[in-house]
């Protein structure tokens, strides 16, 4: 079931984020800032080779962070094939330029078209790799807490953290609701019946989430919450973090300069 799959993926990401590895050892705030800088370099680069080098660098980092490469590549490119591929595909055929391949129905693939599509796909692929690598090597909780370094207000970070926490609760609940329905179903349901049931389930879930949210607010009040959250982080920059930061800045500067 899709809900099970989502929960499994989330648990897997937490597991890889907590195992020992190169990126797992670094300060989450540094990883967030570095990820933003690499995204900037990927976005600004007009040189395909620079983007390819950056992509392979992401693969190397994944390898040294003990992320299974097959899983990492699949997670990035599966998404891109479905969504970005659909957008990039027309560029292959409609961009004017030197013809590379003649296809049936009068379609042609041009050199410029191929380069444009490749640029687009690689840019998105490398950017998604950066984001996936960040999530797979940093516990989600630390990612959220590190957003403070980007000057995001604590109340927004608190809301994001609670949203993440309760999405899991509601996913579990939805899963249980569907399983309980399945266990009582004696025949296959027809379309309208199925839709009515899904609508009812959605309504129940909405009611449950409202009820939980008001109880959670009481639980917060009970522990001293006064509508303005006080938070703290326990991160500490070590020498290895500063050194990694300098390396990232140099690499990004080089990528932007070479990619001009």
């Amino acid at each position, binding site marked *: 079931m899709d809900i099970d799959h989502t929960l499994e993926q989330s*648990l897997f990401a*937490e597991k890889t984020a*907590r195992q020992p590895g190169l990126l797992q050892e670094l300060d989450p705030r540094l990883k967030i800032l570095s990820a933003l800088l690499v995204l900037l370099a990927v976005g600004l680069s007009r040189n395909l080779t620079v983007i390819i080098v950056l992509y392979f660098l992401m693969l190397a980092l994944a390898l040294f962070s003990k992320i299974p490469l097959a899983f990492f590549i699949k997670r990035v490119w599966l998404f891109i094939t479905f969504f970005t591929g659909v957008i990039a595909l027309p560029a292959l055929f409609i961009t004017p330029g030197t013809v590379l391949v003649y296809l049936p129905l009068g379609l042609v693939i041009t050199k410029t078209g191929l380069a444009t599509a490749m640029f687009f796909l690689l840019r998105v692929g490398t950017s998604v790799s950066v984001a996936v690598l960040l999530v797979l090597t940093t*516990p*989600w*909780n630390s990612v*959220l*807490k590190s957003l403070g370094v980007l000057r995001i207000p604590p109340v927004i970070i608190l809301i994001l*953290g*609670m949203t*993440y*926490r*309760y999405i*899991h*609760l509601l996913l*579990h609940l939805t899963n249980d609701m569907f399983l309980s329905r399945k266990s009582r179903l004696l025949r296959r349901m027809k379309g309208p019946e199925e839709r009515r049931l899904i609508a009812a389930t959605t309504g129940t879930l909405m009611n449950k989430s409202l009820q*939980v949210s008001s*109880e*959670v607010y*009481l*639980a*917060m*009040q*009970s*522990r*001293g*919450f*006064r509508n303005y*959250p*006080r*938070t*703290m982080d*326990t991160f500490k920059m070590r020498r290895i973090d500063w050194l990694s930061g300098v390396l990232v800045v140099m690499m990004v500067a080089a990528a932007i300069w070479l990619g001009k």
Partner: protein
Amino acid sequence: MAVGRAGGHDGCSSHLVGKIGNLQIMETPPIFDVNGLCYNYDNQIPALEHVSLTVRRGERLVILGSNGSGKSTLLKILDGLYFPNQGSVIAFGRLLTEQAFQEEAFNFEFRRRVSLVFQDSDVQLFMPSVWDELAFAPLQLGLSQEEVKSRVESALRDLQIEKLRQRAPHQLSGGEKKRVALASVLGLSPDVWLLDEPSAGLDPLSTAWLLDFINQQGKAGKTVITATHDLGIVDAIAERVYVLGEDHQGVAEGTPHQVLADKALLISSRLMRP
């Protein structure tokens, strides 16, 4: 056995109530004094009707009642989360009203001294990790970062959940969630624990651990008020039992032995099969 007020004087000094030989029996001052409390949900559905109750410092009280009798609502009122439609609740000599909680000093002092552990641990555990959960209450009360860290580490050690510190609540078992829920208020070192159905959904080992925890708090001089319908734990954790009936009113109070021996009372309160 009749419903009776256990006492009703205000103030904070101890009060001499009797003498056995040379031993003076001191009646400890009330922490909560509930008088004629009525509470309705949406001003229509009655949850509590004319409840009167006094809770003394250091007492281990069980509020016993069937599902829907109003136990959870009573705990929320004692924690200053809901306010009576009628009647009054006096805590530490001060009337609990919404206005009282607007005062920063009173809110701080009350929240530091009284803590509620919700029945549903998923409601209690709203932060993304166990460490953050434990740090939440000390942080909200404005303690220094060093003090917060020290309290969190101490709570993790006391409840033997150090290994769970970075785990997310959805990755915990029911027993672990209950421990973390208790630890989440232990950091405040409250004088009064309000526990809502603490044994619900726990396996026998976790329940035994929980009963030990409640008794440890009692021995440490803390006031522990537990709402439950679990007759099996009453004797182990209570010095006094207050029974809420199906009509949302207090129907009896006495020692665990007295209450558990009264089958007619338990049957009429839907706590036992006829």
